[in-house]
């Protein structure tokens, strides 16, 4: 089993470096090549179980991955109880160094402690690891019926600037200004990643979402960068959609969209809207891409402190994020296996956790997935 897996990985690896080799602008190519240098030794990945239901679902992930024979060794890191002066937050310097070293990570839900004098955990991760793109695939899970059956799209959101720069000030009493910043560099970076992703995953259309009729210079710059990158990929259709039209089309007919690339604020809203279309944040995987090919997959739901420790949590989001991580590492065969197992378990309907309308516990659900492998 392991030898066959190694052979398969090397084969897939050759093809992928052929696809990615021509495009030198992405750091992802170098990271993949590096991962394959050690095809017989397991890949180390950082795992942040997080708070609340985090540890339980992280256990779930570890179990499924071991059963599937995924050659990953987990390096677990927990959020500290004191503020680390080097990072100014509860995340320790070692944790961040570990992600920088391993280049891949999986993160569970983290609750930011309330208080001042430290940065929020997500902000720390984002700034320190320079995570510039947030990728969220949204597809209807067969077997879990929502009002929308034919959703199959991916939202790619610029994650560092835009409206969330946090630069606000009070001009005079009662008047507040907030700065929205768009730079050429960041827009090019996320556009490059979006088109690269579309190409490697066989997607045919990339839509840039904007409001450039009102915000002409800022979203206009974003669009210009997207257009430049689009010219380099003539086989992918490129279109631009104004955000209010996009919202309406998404709720009327989500099948119209394929890959969406957007600046920060629109991305936040649209990606949550799309998550709502397929069943909520409990089922949505997500992956953050950083400079130098760093990929941190995460579950975007909250830490649900009220069901923590009761074996009731739904591990689907973290599992699907793990699958995204595997695909990033080009371990496509195992990714496909685990993915089908999850889909089949949910489709069958016999083992479903409470939020999907069933009554299984986390461990039963995990076992069902392992049985399907």
């Amino acid at each position, binding site marked *: 089993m392991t030898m066959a897996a190694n052979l398969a990985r090397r084969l897939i690896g050759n093809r992928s470096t052929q696809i990615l080799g021509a495009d030198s602008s992405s750091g992802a190519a170098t990271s993949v090549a590096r991962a394959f240098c050690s095809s017989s030794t397991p890949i180390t990945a950082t795992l942040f179980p997080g708070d609340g239901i985090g540890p339980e679902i992280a256990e779930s992930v570890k179990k499924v991955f071991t059963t599937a024979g995924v050659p990953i060794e987990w390096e677990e890191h927990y959020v500290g109880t004191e503020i680390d002066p080097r990072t100014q937050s509860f995340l320790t310097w070692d944790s961040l160094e570990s992600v920088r070293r391993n280049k891949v990570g999986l993160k569970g839900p983290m609750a930011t402690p309330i208080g001042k004098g430290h940065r929020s955990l997500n902000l720390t991760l984002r700034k320190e690891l320079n995570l510039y793109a947030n990728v969220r695939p949204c597809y209807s899970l067969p077997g879990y019926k*929502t*009002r*929308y059956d034919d959703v199959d799209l991916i939202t790619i959101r610029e994650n560092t600037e835009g*409206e*969330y720069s*946090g630069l*606000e*000030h*009070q001009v005079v*009493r*009662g*008047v*507040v*200004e*907030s*700065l*929205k*910043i*768009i*730079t*050429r*560099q960041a827009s090019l970076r996320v556009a490059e990643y979006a088109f690269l992703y579309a190409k490697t995953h066989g997607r045919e259309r990339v839509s840039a979402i904007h*409001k*450039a*009729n*009102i*915000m*002409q*210079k*800022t979203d*206009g*710059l974003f*669009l210009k960068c997207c257009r430049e990158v689009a010219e380099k990929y003539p086989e992918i259709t490129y279109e*631009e959609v*104004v*955000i*209010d*039209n996009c*919202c*309406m*089309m*998404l*709720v*009327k007919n989500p099948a119209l969209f394929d890959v969406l690339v957007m600046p920060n*604020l629109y991305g*936040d*809203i*649209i*990606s*949550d*809207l799309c*998550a*709502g*279309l397929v069943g*909520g*944040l409990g089922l949505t995987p997500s992956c953050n891409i950083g400079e130098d090919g760093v990929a941190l997959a995460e579950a975007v739901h909250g830490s649900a402190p009220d069901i923590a420790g009761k074996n009731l949590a739904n591990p689907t989001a973290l599992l699907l994020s793990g699958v995204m991580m595997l695909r990033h590492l080009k371990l496509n065969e195992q990714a496909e296996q685990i993915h089908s197992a999850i889909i089949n378990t949910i489709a069958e309907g016999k083992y479903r956790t409470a939020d999907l309308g069933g009554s299984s516990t986390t461990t039963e659900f995990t076992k069902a997935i392992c049985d399907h492998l």
Partner: protein
Amino acid sequence: MARRSASMLSRLLANPSSPFTAPSRSITYMPRPGDGAPRIVTLIPGDGIGPLVTGAVEQVMEAMHAPVHFERYEVRGNMRKVPEEVIESVKRNKVCLKGGLATPVGGGVSSLNMQLRKELDIYASLVNCINVPGLVTRHENVDIVVIRENTEGEYSGLEHEVVPGVVESLKVITKFCSERIARYAFEYAYLNNRKKVTAVHKANIMKLADGLFLESCREVAKKYSGITYNEIIVDNCCMQLVAKPEQFDVMVTPNLYGNLIANTAAGIAGGTGVMPGGNVGAEHAIFEQGASAGNVGNDKIVEQKKANPVALLLSSAMMLRHLRFPTFADRLETAVKQVIQEGKCRTKDLGGDCTTQEVVDAVIAALE
């Protein structure tokens, strides 16, 4: 005659709480002497499907013999600014009916829709997203009014290039405007018997800007003890809208979020082709199709004349109420609702294949 009253009776019994149901005869509206004099309304056909749908409204108004005269002005979306005479006319008439004005993307021309709103200080934009009986959508029980601040926020138009490759845009929130819109939203809820007002924000990230907006809303909420007030973050709000829209009643939002929420809510209730909406200020009012004022359809629809006039017809009914002609408004709404419910004559976005003219004829025929 018996058949019509039977159908009306069945409609009344089926849907007693829908605002579209008109009582068979209204006896409580007592006009003042002279109220029947015709009012002049500025009409701006606009671009794209604009002329088509405003033409539809004109036809229907004539058929009803409504005491409304239209003063028509040509404004195109690619003009530098709205002509002085148009603004003068709106200031004189106080009411305007408008088709869409397309803003060219990245063209360096500031949006004419925004210009009109800022000059006339029309600070509240209202979109009523409600399930129309007979139109099957994925969501039921949708009855949301989105009240959106219309003059400031992200649409201030203050952008500049700091250095080549870095552009800044200012989002301005003032206490004055936030309070104004909050007061309007609560008053609307109070006067229209609405139970809940929800403020939509992103104050966890934009602490000062949206924080100021929320503060203003909270202050106004204290004065209306009969109305429930709650707050929701905009991304969660979109998710809830798609999953459980019946939990929302009146929503008050700053400019950009309002645009998105209005379009999303319009989409789940049937599409922007059907939702009425208006913009209102202290002295003037502009009525146009509910969400997406800048959406003028594509050339194909214009050529084939298949634009959906329902949104503008319902907005003109709102306009008739604003002008204090409630029975005309009721008649128009009933007729339009009947046409949609019958389902024989619908344009493409509602799943049918009729032209605009056919829908107009059907509405005129349905007028009593």
